[in-house]
């Protein structure tokens, strides 16, 4: 990959990787740090990576870095620690997409990531499996369970009648 291609990768995929990480961990500073680390890592091996594969490489590297951060940081909690009753009561937005993003925050990190990769980036199951290190069957299971959880959230917030 040339310097020009590297810069193209920054311009073209920088926002995509950032919003994937940011929506996964809901922390702007940490998301920015993770994306920056990812691109620094890419720059160190810029000559070894083909431009055609750089997007998947960026998402894979950023995802792994994010998992490391999540494991090290106890502040990033999963859905299991939320009090559902209090969270459902605070919802008042009528924008479905916004409500879905609120619901997304309640999902476990893995479900959140695979749904983001599926919906935001349009990756296929096998591509998501490559990025996350899961099997394709696991990816499907996480996605379908995540969708069901989103639906249940909408039901409890009376958005899904």
């Amino acid at each position, binding site marked *: 990959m040339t*310097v*020009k291609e*590297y*810069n193209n990768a*920054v*311009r073209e995929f*920088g*926002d995509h*990787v*950032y*919003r994937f990480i*940011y*929506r996964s961990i809901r922390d702007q500073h940490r998301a*920015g740090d993770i*994306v*920056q680390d990812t*691109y*620094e890592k890419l*720059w160190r091996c810029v000559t070894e990576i083909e431009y055609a594969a750089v997007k998947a490489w960026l998402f894979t590297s950023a995802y792994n870095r994010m998992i490391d951060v999540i494991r090290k940081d106890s502040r990033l909690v999963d859905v299991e620690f939320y009090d559902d009753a209090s969270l459902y009561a605070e919802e008042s937005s009528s924008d*479905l*997409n916004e409500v*879905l*993003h609120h619901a*997304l925050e309640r999902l476990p990190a893995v479900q959140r990531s695979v*749904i*983001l990769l599926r*919906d*935001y980036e349009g990756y296929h*199951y096998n591509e998501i499996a490559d990025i996350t290190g899961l099997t394709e069957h696991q990816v*499907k299971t996480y*996605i*379908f*369970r995540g*969708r*069901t959880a*989103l*639906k249940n959230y*909408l039901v409890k917030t009376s958005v*899904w009648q």
Partner: protein
Amino acid sequence: MNDDTDYPRLAPPDDRYPSPGNLFRSANDLADDQFDLLAAAWSENALPDDSLAEMEALFVSDPAKKTYAKRFRLLHLSPIDDEWKGKNALLRTRPAAKIIRRVYLATMAAAAVAVVLLTLRPFAEKQPAIQAPVRSPEVAVVSEPAKTAPLVVKEQVPVPVVAVTKTSVPSEKKELPVTEQEQIIKINPVIVSARTETPVIIAEIDGRKLLAVKLNEIPAPVNIPEREENWIMKGIAGLSRAIKKEKTPVDGYAFAKSCINGINSVFGSEMELEKVISKNGDTVGVTFSSSLLSFSAPVRKSSQ
């Protein structure tokens, strides 16, 4: 002992589950959670062919379930416009581009400094001329020279001379009488100054025709143009008007300040341009300081 037939073996008895029919299930027997998972998969076209066929059959028997499953297609997230602000900081430049960029920035910085200096230079040059006291130590005006007087040339005659005819001419000497109009000073017949720019020839003077003038009555030179705009300011003003389509005056200080701030941000230098403000709140000058150059320049009121 190597043959399996050597071991005694149990033959399975012909036992049957008494009611196998109770264990069979149809799609209608799926629990809600199970159906939700299938509906989620169906909404993403991820069901295998056999499962898809069963779902289609179920939808035929119960159209409400199809409507219900279709709503899962609404559960897809659309990206929110999350922009990464640190993106530009990661852009890399090629060596050639880096050289071009540095040359360009250095040129722009030099141009900005030149603009600052050229913008402030007229102010710095004009201001002392206005405020400095009028000095004309060897000026004297003669009513009319005497034709028969012998000429004597001297240099640097220490005797001060002040004489004024009907037109007021500046002069300064503390020895001058300032109150008595009739007081007349005798002067030497002829004085030729050594200064070439103000040669004064004084012939035989009738001292009674000379009048003394108070120093504070001497007017300042009036040959300074009221407003002198250099071509840079005119150009900037014209450009500003062309862009903004407004007839607004250009603030030279603000322009110079922004140029210097830009240079500081690009090169990390520590140049400063500050206004000097009087007690009345008027801007009386500007000071520029950097590691290489420092100066102060007064500012005309008309340029504020």
